[in-house]
């Protein structure tokens, strides 16, 4: 049962890097809990997405739907049962898994671009339903929020209703700030471990074989549908967990979490970090969330400050040409970075890391870990 020694080392290193984030992110101004939580949560989302896209090659463009469903499920658990995050997170994973089973069952009847379009259509449908007819469940535009009058059956059974809305807790400990981050980080490490187990298992090997040559799999005696469906459901559950954690660290859920831009974001994260690698998606999630927070916070006054060492004319010139890339326009920066990566490092940032490492050790590129951008079929 135990995993291989090399993988144990990898897991320990990964855990170490994640748990020490508050230390090593401090010099680049990113060591605040809110951002670190987001990195951990979106890391989970991206790892799960990679189990589908990276291993089987099926590119889903609707994974944000599962993120959103997870959030709603968690908030409902807070409202109806208890403010403890454990049932909320479990509930989020189960509901997202069931939702993924239904969407996957239909979408996986097609492959390639048709599969992508089907998942996109389902996600947009979910998004629009959340805004309109499902308002009783989703609270429409306002988003699902906690209220004083919520039943919270389990909590009420043990304690009286307080005067305010209690914060989410983990075994009685209030989950906020750094404790929130460590909770998310622990789950990220667990998720990484599970993804690694899948990657090293015969099941994972079959998924990669499906990506490599799906037709051959049928003539090899495999029914590929349950394999792809299982991968789809697993990755949907990862997304649900991420959605549940978003709600656990900030107990409200809105429909915009299901929008296609959110689905696209996880695709970007995975490709940016390295499709088919284990660590890549987490790196991609970290980079994107970091850029989002740092660049979007930049504004013109800060730019003037940054370029103040230049003569006035030049300063204004530089501020003018860089201004569109920061603040609201940070997506432009992301776009440029993304294009550069895809053109020069098709294997994502992990390929860059590998190239640098190989340049030092002068070993030929290790083929086992080479991530590849392959179309779904």
């Amino acid at each position, binding site marked *: 049962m135990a995993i291989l020694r090399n993988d144990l080392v990898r897991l320990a290193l990964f855990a170490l890097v994640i748990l020490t984030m508050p230390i090593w992110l401090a010099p680049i101004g990113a060591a605040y809990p809110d951002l670190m939580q987001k990195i951990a949560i979106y890391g989970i989302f991206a790892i799960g997405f990679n189990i589908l896209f990276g291993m089987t090659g099926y590119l889903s463009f609707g994974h944000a739907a599962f993120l959103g469903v997870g959030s709603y499920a968690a908030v409902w658990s807070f409202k109806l049962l208890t403010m403890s995050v454990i049932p909320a997170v479990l509930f989020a994973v189960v509901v997202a898994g069931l939702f993924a089973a239904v969407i996957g069952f239909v979408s996986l009847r097609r492959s390639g671009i048709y599969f992508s379009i089907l998942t996109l259509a389902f996600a947009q449908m979910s998004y629009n339903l959340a805004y309109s007819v499902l308002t009783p469940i989703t609270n429409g535009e306002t988003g699902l929020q906690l209220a004083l009058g919520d039943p919270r059956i389990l909590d009420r059974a043990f304690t009286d209703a307080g005067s305010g809305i209690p914060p989410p807790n983990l075994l009685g400990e209030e989950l906020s700030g750094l404790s929130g981050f460590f909770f998310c980080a622990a789950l990220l490490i667990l998720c990484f471990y599970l993804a690694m187990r899948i990657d*090293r298992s015969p099941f994972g090997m079959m998924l990669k*074989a499906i990506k490599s040559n799906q037709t051959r799999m049928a003539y090899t005696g495999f029914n*590929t549908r349950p394999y792809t469906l299982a991968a789809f459901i697993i990755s949907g559950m990862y997304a649900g967990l991420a959605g549940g954690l978003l709600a656990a660290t900030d107990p409200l859920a809105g429909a915009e979490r299901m929008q296609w831009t959110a689905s696209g974001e996880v695709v970007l994260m995975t490709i940016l970090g390295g499709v088919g690698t284990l660590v890549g998606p987490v790196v991609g999630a970290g980079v994107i969330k970091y850029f989002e927070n740092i660049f979007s916070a930049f504004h013109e006054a800060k730019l003037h400050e940054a370029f103040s060492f230049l003569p006035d004319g030049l300063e204004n010139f530089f501020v003018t040409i860089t201004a569109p890339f920061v603040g609201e326009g940070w997506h432009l920066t992301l776009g440029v970075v993304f294009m550069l990566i895809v053109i020069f490092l098709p294997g994502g940032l992990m390929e860059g890391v590998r190239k640098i490492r190989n340049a030092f050790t002068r070993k030929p590129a290790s083929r*086992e870990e080479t991530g590849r951008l392959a179309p779904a079929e």
Partner: protein
Amino acid sequence: MANAVLHVADVHKSFGGLRALSDIDLQVMEGTTHAIIGPNGAGKSTLLNVCIGRIAPDTGAVVFDGQVITGKQPHEINQMGVVRVFQTPEIFPDLSLLHNVMVPAFAKRDGSFRLNALQVTSRQTAIREEAEHWLEDVGLYKQRETLAASLSRGDKRRLELAMGLVQHPRLLLLDEPTAGMSRHDTNSTIDLLRKFKERGMTKVIIEHDMHVVFSLADRVTVLAQGRIIADGKPDEVRGNPVVQEAYLGGAH
């Protein structure tokens, strides 16, 4: 009298106006090597495709081991013990040679689906050793850790042969197994296939290379324009004037 393992019964297949197969009735006896020859476009590959469920015949049926397999899914037919080696090598280019052979070995052991996500592939010693054994037999053991995509065409064929043999098929369908191989590799493939004849594996082999046909086959069926024009022992078929006219004379 040996049993017929495979019975292709009155199969017709047309593509648009083209009659690809008409009136095909063919029995393959247990433990024999049955060669199907014929000029290009005679319908040989279509016949194999009908046998493994890739193409549905217009009329007629294919019976394997007493069961009608027409209409079954390809993976179901494989699980019954019918394995095909393709004309253009169908392998898993992104996997190592070892994994290429381990995948079908898992299909044989675990069936068409199993959620074994918590097993560790590299600890599946029995499967790995079996795969290594077949890689050794086809002469690819040394390259077992390289990616299958990097192989030459001839080596890909041999890899695919190992992928088929690891499943211990009851019926092995080979579509030009030696095309693109050097004479030396062809001979070693013939030797390899002969070994299985001794072990009682039934084989259907499509081949252009008469050297291969006459060194392996117990029975030869000649197809031309979608019809069987001759069927019999290799020597009978070789001496048949109709066959020489339609095929041996024309092609060689």
